[in-house]
């Protein structure tokens, strides 16, 4: 199975929405940029039927350089987590269970 990328999404917007090639490419680009910007500003992104992108603040914790064994603290950071919607979870479970991993 191949990997879906921005190029295929742009082709679909050209075919199914009727945007021209340049508009289709820009729409795919701004779609992901809009989500990035919201997350960058600390906003949750809730896409009904697909899932939610949330932010999580992780406190500082002790870490170690695996090569040298030297102790170095891992700084506090903010990370993005994705929570698939019930719809997406059940689509994946129904269409794709008991088979080999992707």
């Amino acid at each position: 199975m191949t990997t879906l990328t921005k190029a295929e999404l742009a082709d679909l917007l050209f075919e199914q929405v009727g945007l021209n090639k340049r508009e289709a490419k820009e729409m795919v680009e701004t779609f992901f940029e809009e989500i990035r910007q919201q997350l960058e500003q600390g906003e949750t992104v809730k896409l009904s039927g697909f899932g939610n992108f949330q932010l999580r603040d992780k406190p500082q914790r002790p870490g170690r350089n695996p090569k040298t064994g030297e102790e170095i603290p891992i700084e506090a950071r903010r990370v993005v987590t994705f929570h698939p919607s019930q719809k997406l979870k059940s689509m994946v479970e129904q269409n794709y269970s008991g088979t080999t991993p992707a």
Partner: protein
Amino acid sequence: MTRSELIANLAERHPQLLAKDAELAVKVILDTLGDTLASGGRIEIRGFGSFALNYRPPRQGRNPKSGDKVQVPAKYVPHFKAGKELRERVDYPAK
């Protein structure tokens, strides 16, 4: 931001397009992402992140109401890994 706010923001960024084109574009993109995962595929969006399926082995569970043991079958769940640009942009700026 909700799905309808995303549509409104995209319509604003693309003033040359009809508002309903932004709505349809969001639908096509999200449906395609979902269908790709549902059929076992991977998604890779440079600078944003990748979506794939994670395997959950079968396990012995319990019905929380009755306490009965139930066999939970193996399944796959969607998983997102943020890309480098997204990771760096959401993290605290003072680094």
